[in-house]
C-alpha cells in the first residue's frame, strides 16, 4: 500500500518536470538558426509556391508559442504528429525501437553477466596479479573512445571480410529460414556489441570492485569473519547483498540510456537504431521527431529511476523500514 502511494507521488512529481523539459527543448530547437527548409530553398528547381506550401504545412508561419501549444495538445492526446517528410512519427519510432532495444539489451545483459563476477573476483583477490591484469584491461577499455574503437573494428571487418560492414541484416534476410535469420542478426551484432560491451564493462567492473571492497572493509564483515562464518557465506550472503545496492541505482540510469545511449556507435556501424534517427532529425530540425524522442528519453529516465528505487526498497530492508516509519 505504502509502496503504491510512493509510486503515485513520484509520478505526480515528474509531471512538472516533463513540462519543463518539453518547453526548454521545444524553444531551443525552434530558436536555433536551423531552417528545416534551407535545403529546399537552395534547389533551383523548387518553385516559390512549393516553398510557401511547405512553410504552411509545417506550421512555420505561426509564432513559436502557438506551435508549442499545437504540439503539446496533440502530444497529450497521444498523437506524436508527422515528420517533416510526412511520415507518422510513431511509425518511424516503431521501426527503430526494436533494433535499438535489441542492441541495448544484449549489451546490458552481457556486461552484467561478465562485469559483476569480474568485479567480485577482483575485489576478493585484491592486489593479486589477476586484479592487476583486470585493472589494466579495464583501464584500456575506459580509455578507448567508442567512436575510434568502432572505426577500428570496421576497418578490421573490411580487411578480414569476417564481419559485415555495418547494417543489421543481409540483403536476402527476408528469404532466410528462421535459424539463418538469427545467425545473420548475431553476425551483424558482433562488432557493435563488442564496442559497447568493452566500454561499459570497464565501468561496471570497477564499480563492483570498489563497492565490494568497501563492504569487505566494514565492521560487520569483520565481525562475521571473527564469528567463524565461512568465507563463502560472509561474501555471498552478507557482503555482496550490501555491495549490490549502488549497482541497482546504476541500472536505473542504464535503462534511461537504453534507447538513446549508443548514437555514435550506431552511426559508425550504420546501425538502423534510434540514435541515428534522432541525430538526422536534429540536423534537419524535424521538430516532431526530435520532441518525441526527447520526451521518450525523459520518460525513460524517470521510469528507470523509479524502478531502481522500487528495487532498492525490495532489496534493502533499511529503506523499507525508514519508509514504513514515515
Amino acid at each position: 500500500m505504502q509502496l503504491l502511494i510512493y509510486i503515485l507521488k513520484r509520478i505526480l512529481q515528474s509531471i512538472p518536470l516533463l513540462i519543463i523539459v518539453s518547453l526548454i527543448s521545444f524553444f531551443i530547437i525552434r530558436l536555433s538558426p536551423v531552417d528545416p527548409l534551407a535545403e529546399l530553398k537552395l534547389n533551383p528547381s523548387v518553385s516559390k509556391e512549393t516553398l510557401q506550401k511547405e512553410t504552411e504545412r509545417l506550421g512555420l508561419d505561426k509564432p513559436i508559442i502557438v506551435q508549442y501549444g499545437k504540439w503539446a495538445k496533440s502530444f497529450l492526446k497521444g498523437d506524436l504528429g508527422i515528420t517533416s517528410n510526412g511520415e507518422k512519427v510513431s511509425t518511424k519510432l516503431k521501426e527503430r525501437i526494436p533494433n535499438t532495444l535489441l542492441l541495448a539489451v544484449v549489451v546490458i545483459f552481457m556486461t552484467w553477466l561478465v562485469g559483476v563476477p569480474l568485479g567480485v573476483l577482483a575485489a576478493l583477490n585484491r592486489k593479486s596479479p589477476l586484479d592487476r591484469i583486470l585493472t589494466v584491461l579495464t583501464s584500456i577499455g575506459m580509455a578507448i573512445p567508442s567512436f575510434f574503437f568502432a572505426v577500428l573494428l570496421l576497418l578490421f571487418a573490411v580487411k578480414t571480410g569476417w564481419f559485415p560492414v555495418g547494417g543489421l541484416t543481409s540483403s536476402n534476410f527476408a528469404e532466410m529460414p528462421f535459424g539463418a535469420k538469427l545467425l545473420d542478426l548475431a553476425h551483424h551484432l558482433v562488432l557493435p556489441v563488442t564496442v559497447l560491451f568493452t566500454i561499459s564493462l570497464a565501468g561496471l567492473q570497477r564499480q563492483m570492485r570498489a563497492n565490494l571492497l568497501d563492504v569487505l572493509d566494514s565492521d560487520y564483515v569483520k565481525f562475521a569473519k571473527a564469528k567463524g562464518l565461512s568465507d563463502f557465506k560472509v561474501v555471498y550472503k552478507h557482503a555482496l547483498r550490501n555491495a549490490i545496492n549502488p549497482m541497482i541505482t546504476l541500472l536505473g540510469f542504464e535503462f534511461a540510456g537504453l534507447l538513446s545511449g549508443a548514437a555514435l556507435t550506431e552511426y559508425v556501424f550504420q546501425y538502423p537504431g534510434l540514435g541515428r534517427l534522432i541525430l538526422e532529425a536534429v540536423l534537419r530540425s524535424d521538430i516532431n521527431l526530435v520532441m518525441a524522442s526527447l520526451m521518450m528519453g525523459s520518460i525513460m529516465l524517470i521510469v528507470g529511476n523509479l524502478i531502481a528505487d522500487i528495487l532498492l526498497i525490495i532489496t534493502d530492508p533499511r529503506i523499507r523500514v525508514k519508509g514504513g516509519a514515515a
Partner: protein
Amino acid sequence: MKKWVYVILVLLFCAFVLKACVHKDNPASYPPQIRPKSDIERVEYPPQAKTVSINGVDFLQSQAPVGSFGGELRTSTIGEGPKTFNPFNSKDNISSIMSGVMYDGLLSTDPETGEPIPKLAKSLEVKGNDYIVHLRRGVKWSDGKEITADDVVFTWKDIIFAGFGNTSTRDSLIIDGKLPSVTKIDKYTVKFTTVQPFAPFVRMLSTEIAPKHVFEPAVKKGKDYFYTFLSTNTDPKDFVTSGAFRLKEYVPAQRVVFERNPNYYIINKNNEKLPYLDRLIYFIVGDLNNEVLKFEGGEIDVIGLQGANVARFKEREAHSDYRIYNLGPNTGTMFLTMNLNDRKNKDGKYYVNPMKQKWFQDVNFRLACDYAMDRKNMVLNIANGLGEPLYTAESLNSIFLNRKLEPYQRDLEKAKEYLRKSGFYWDKKGHLLDRQGNHVEFDLFTNAGNTEREAIGVMVKQDLEDLGMKVNFKPVEFNTLVNRLLNTLDWDMAIMGLTGSPLEPNGGKNVWMSDGTLHMFNQRQEEDRESRRYDWEKQIDEAYVKGALATNFEERKRYYDEYQRIAYEQKPFIYIYSPIIITAIRTKFKNVFPSALAGITYNLEEIYIDNDKDNNTKNRKK
C-alpha cells in the same frame, strides 16, 4: 626497479601505436595533376533502341549486346534514404532516383547527344504548340493492366496540373497564368497544347506516368492524403509500376530492394523481356567513408569516388575486380558571388553598406577579383586535380555551353589595371583603397562543415589579399548562410555552389531571372519586385524569356549563348571550378556505357552480369 620495467613497457607500447600514425602521415606518393581531357572515356554506344511490334505489342528493342539473365546489382545512397516513393511528391534527389527506377516517363534522354528519345511513348510529333504523343500498344503495368492514353491524361491533368504533390513542374509551365492543355485523341494518342511555343516542355515529357487505377482513389481523397500516398511505409505489394523494377522491400536506414518487373516493355535483340538483373539493391549509408568501406568489403558494386580515394583506387585497379570511369565534369558549379543589392530594407537602411556597394556594383572591381582567382591552383590543391576550371554559367557538360567564351589564367597585373581604371589605389603598405580613400575590406561567407567550400574560401581570401584587399573569411552554419543570402541580405561576398541541368538551361531561371527565388547576387524581396534592374539583368531576363519560347535548338542556343556571354562579361558569379565525376563499377557487369550526361547506371535494364572470369580480366585496362 620494477617501476622502470613498467615505464619502459608503457613507452614501448606508445611507440608502437604511434608508429602506425607515422606511416599513415607519409605524403601521398601520387602528386595531384590536372587530368588531360583525353582521359575521359570514349565509349562506343550501341545504336539507339527501336520499336519492334510482336503480336500487336509495340516493344522497345534495346540494341545493346545480348547478355545473360540473373544476379543483382548493389549500389548505395548517402543520407537518410528515400523520403517517399511517390514520383510526384519527391523533392530530394534520392527519392527521385527511387521513383525513377519504378516509373518510366514518355520520353527519356539520349545518353550521348542529350536529345529526347522515346521511352513509354512510341513517337512524338511536334506541330507548333501541339505535342502529339503516340503510345505503345499492348504495353502493361506490372499488375498486367494496359498502359493507355487515360493514364497519361490522368497524370498530367489530375495530378500535375491540379497541383498535387511537388508543384514545381506545374509552376514552371504556367505562362501568362495559363497551363498547357492535354487531351486524349484515342486509346493510344494524347495531344498536349502549350499556350505559346515553349521549348522546355519536351524535356518535361520525361516526367513519370502514374497508373490511373492506382492513383485515382488517392487523388479523390485530396491533397493532404496524396502527400502521404505511396510513402515509405507503403506495402511493397501496392506498387504498380511501369519501370524496369518494382519495389520488393524497404528496410528503414538499411536498404531498398527492387525486383525485376516481369511486364517490362524493353526487350533485347533475341526478343526476351528485360531487365537482365533479378534485383537492384540500394544500401542506405550514413556517410562517404562508410560507402567506401562497403565497396572495399565487396558489399556494393558501384561507387562514386572523390578526392584522395581516386588515387588509391586507381593504384589498385589493375589487380582488382573493378574498373574506374571518368565521366567528366559534373553539373555542379562552384562560385564566388557579390551582393549587388542597391536597395534599402524596411527600416530604411541599405542592405549593403553604400561604401561597399560602390565596389561590388563596379564591373571593373568584379573583373579584378575574377582575374585574381587562381583556379588551377584550387583544382590541384582542393579537388586533388579532379576538377575543371570553370568560366561559364552553364556547366561544362551542358549541351548549351557557349564554347566561344575563352578560359584564361590568373593575371594579377590585369586585375590591378582594372582596379586602377576605377580609381582604386594602394598605400605604401600595399593596402587597397578606393577613390574616397576607404580601405577595401569585406566579409566572405560560406557554409561551415563543407570542407571543400571552406578550402576554396581560404584560397580565395589569399588570392584577393594579393590585390591588397582585406578579406574576413567567415564560414557560418548552412542555414544561417541561406537565411543571409535569401532573407536578411546582409552579406558582402559568398562562396556557394549550385547544380543545374546539362540539358535544359531554363531550370536556371530561378537563379538568373531578376525576380527569381535564387537570384542571389541581387535578391529581390516581395516588396522590391518592381525595383530598378541593371541593364545587363534586363538583357539576361530577355534572353531567358526568348530562349524558353524559341523552339528549335539553334535558335535557343543563340539566346542562351547570349546570357552566358553577359554573365561572363559582368561576373555576378565568379565561377571557380566543376568537380569531375569518377565512378568505379565491378568488371563483371557488362553493357556499361558511362556517359557524362546520364551517369553510369542509367541503362539498368541492359546491364547484365558476366560470370565468366576470363572475360572480366580481358576487359580490364592494361
